């Protein structure tokens, strides 16, 4: 049993990892067939993984409702919205449009989910303005450089800035293409080396946290 719980998953990770690392360099029909099939399988397994995430959300709010913790009424609203959407979705066969006409599911998406999600994120505009006013101070030379770069980019990226101070456009272009690229590239190279090292540790069984905790770890 210990073999099934511990060694087998590590062996599968090792075999899959090694096989698909080398697959990239070996475009043989057998290896191409393997990646064709397995990538398709991964699509399906990822779909199941999605349900795993959604199910934990069901659970969190179900607990809030059954224990009637403060604000449980909102969790109930969440459940009603969720079950209502699922019922309407299945009733509409998962289609948002049929013959060019909108289904009830499509209506729900367009007039509830789109505005709600859009507004939730747009609200950050107000907080970024407030933060700019309260925290964006030239306390040091470094902070001053940051501030000047931000102001130049904000000017150079809108028509009014380009109209009033045309040079901000060229400076912004240079700043993004050269100075910003250098930093992003350095970070990218660093992070990628870390990612490759992590992948190797996973394949070799050194990093095992993805298997979850428990006594059999």
């Amino acid at each position, binding site marked *: 049993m210990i073999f099934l719980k511990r060694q*087998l*998953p590590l062996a599968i*990770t*090792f*075999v899959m*990892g090694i096989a*698909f*690392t080398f697959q990239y360099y070996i475009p043989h029909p057998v290896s191409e067939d393997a*990646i064709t099939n*397995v990538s*398709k*399988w991964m699509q*399906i*397994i*990822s*779909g*199941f*993984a*999605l349900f*795993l995430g959604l199910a934990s*959300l069901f659970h969190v709010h179900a607990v809030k409702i059954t224990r009637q913790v403060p*604000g449980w009424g909102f969790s109930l609203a969440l*459940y009603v*919205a*969720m079950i209502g*959407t*699922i019922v309407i*979705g299945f009733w509409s066969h*998962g289609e948002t449009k049929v013959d060019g006409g909108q289904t009830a599911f499509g209506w729900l998406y367009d007039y*509830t*989910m789109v*505005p709600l*999600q*859009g*507004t939730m*994120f*747009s609200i*950050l*505009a107000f907080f*970024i303005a407030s933060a700019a006013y309260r925290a964006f101070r030239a306390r040091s030379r470094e902070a001053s*450089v940051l501030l000047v*770069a*931000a*102001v*130049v980019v904000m000017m150079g*990226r809108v028509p009014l800035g380009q109209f009033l101070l045309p040079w901000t456009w060229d400076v912004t272009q*240079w*700043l993004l293409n*050269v*100075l910003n*690229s*250098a*930093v992003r590239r350095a*970070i990218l*190279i*660093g992070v990628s080396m870390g990612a*490759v090292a992590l992948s190797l540790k996973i394949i070799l069984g050194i990093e095992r946290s*993805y*298997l*979850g905790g428990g006594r059999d770890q």
Partner: protein
Amino acid sequence: MPEAMLPTEVVLGAWVAAGLTLFIYSFLYKDNPLFKLGEHLYVGISVGYSVVLAWHTVFLRLLWEPLQKAVGEAPASPDSYVLLIPATLGVFMLTRFIPQISWLSRIAFAFVVGFGSGVAIPRTISSYILKQIEDTVNPLLTMGAGGLTMGFDLAAPQSGVNTIILLVGVVSVLFYFFFSVEHTGAGMVTARTGIYFLMIAFGAAFGYTVMSRMSLLIGRFRDLITFAGAAYGYATLVLLAVTVLSLVGWELATRRKTGGASPE
């Protein structure tokens, strides 16, 4: 000319969308039940939508229909049943909720993580490391009609002078992040240079983030302005008044309950 009548479902949709948008914006005054309702509805509807779409795509489109077709065409061939492998692994993944057999989910995770790590290594090295280094060490001199020349045009991203600046930036930022030795002498100069490069990039990122967030607000305001029109029954204006009155009522009721203290 009178405006064309909009279909009822569109007008109703406008009222719902405008109302929910204003509920969320009521947070700008302070956290309140209208915002909380909007927030929870958002999560509920998103999850519901995801469940429906995932079911139709994963179970029906990717699994059930191809399986049915393959088995229908060649019921005796083992190849027809090959999709049962990912289906089984997918079910294994869901066993994480059943403690007695949750170890089965490890097999599924091992399969996914092993594949993910395997395909990531060569591609990450090729795309993120080698290609990026290749462009960082571009030649400074180019052979033209007048012999070897070096470009000094700052406006041309690939010019020689920009290549030098880029190289200095990449090396100094990498040095700043990776060399945890004490930064003294030449090391300090390099690390300081890296910090200035970082500050400029953060400044650019801030500028772009402002641009992005303001664009989102413009998008929502566009809808609110549209829904404020006569064709939509002045939905935005009416609902704005309703939202404000509700907030006033809630504020008064809570103050009465807490003996004059503002609810926060």
